[in-house]
């Protein structure tokens, strides 16, 4: 069966520090991968999605970036965090016409 791992669960980082959130998927090949941000327990904002290794589509211009170095690994990064980057970050995967499956999320607080 397929599983998705996302870590860390919580993170507190100072303004201006770098960020690296990692997401890995098991049990499937060539999935579509997604990063979403959820602010204040409300709607999900699509940040990036990837249909293959090295292929990243960015939905919102900002100081975040994403990379997909391996088929089932998706990384969200920032060189310098802003206060406005605080939020709940969710990774998801999808294959074919199936629904997307979500990780448990990372609560990022920038202080």
């Amino acid at each position, binding site marked *: 069966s397929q599983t998705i791992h996302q870590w860390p669960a919580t993170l507190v980082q100072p303004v201006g520090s770098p960020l690296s959130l990692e997401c890995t998927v098991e049990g499937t090949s060539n999935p579509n991968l997604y990063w979403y941000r959820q602010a204040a327990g409300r709607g999900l904002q699509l940040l990036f999605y990837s249909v293959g290794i090295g292929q990243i589509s960015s939905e919102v211009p900002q100081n975040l970036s994403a990379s997909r170095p391996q088929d089932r690994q998706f990384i969200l990064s920032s060189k310098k965090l802003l206060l406005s980057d605080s939020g709940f970050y969710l990774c998801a995967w999808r294959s074919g*016409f199936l629904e997307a499956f979500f990780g448990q999320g990372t609560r990022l607080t920038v202080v």
Partner: protein
Amino acid sequence: AQSVAQPEDQVNVAEGNPLTVKCTYSVSGNPYLFWYVQYPNRGLQFLLKYITGDNLVKGSYGFEAEFNKSQTSFHLKKPSALVSDSALYFCAVRAHTNNDMRFGAGTRLTVKP
């Protein structure tokens, strides 16, 4: 580009009463439609989906949703609400020809005993 609207930020119902959480969508071509539920500080859990075929879709925990193409709606329903159904509900859409998935702003459902 596709989009989803959930017109109600909050829905309150009494336990045992039917519930409806509304969703309308905009997409070029045929849609895939989804409902998810989120409990505090957790990821989203899949409830049900519409791909094609029967407009009435049944999903987990007694939830169902009806696809209405003419009204571009996909409302979530349950005949008898439980207190444990209280959570944040998200509708999502993806076009058949697209890879990105768009979510609505979410509707907070509160079921009171």
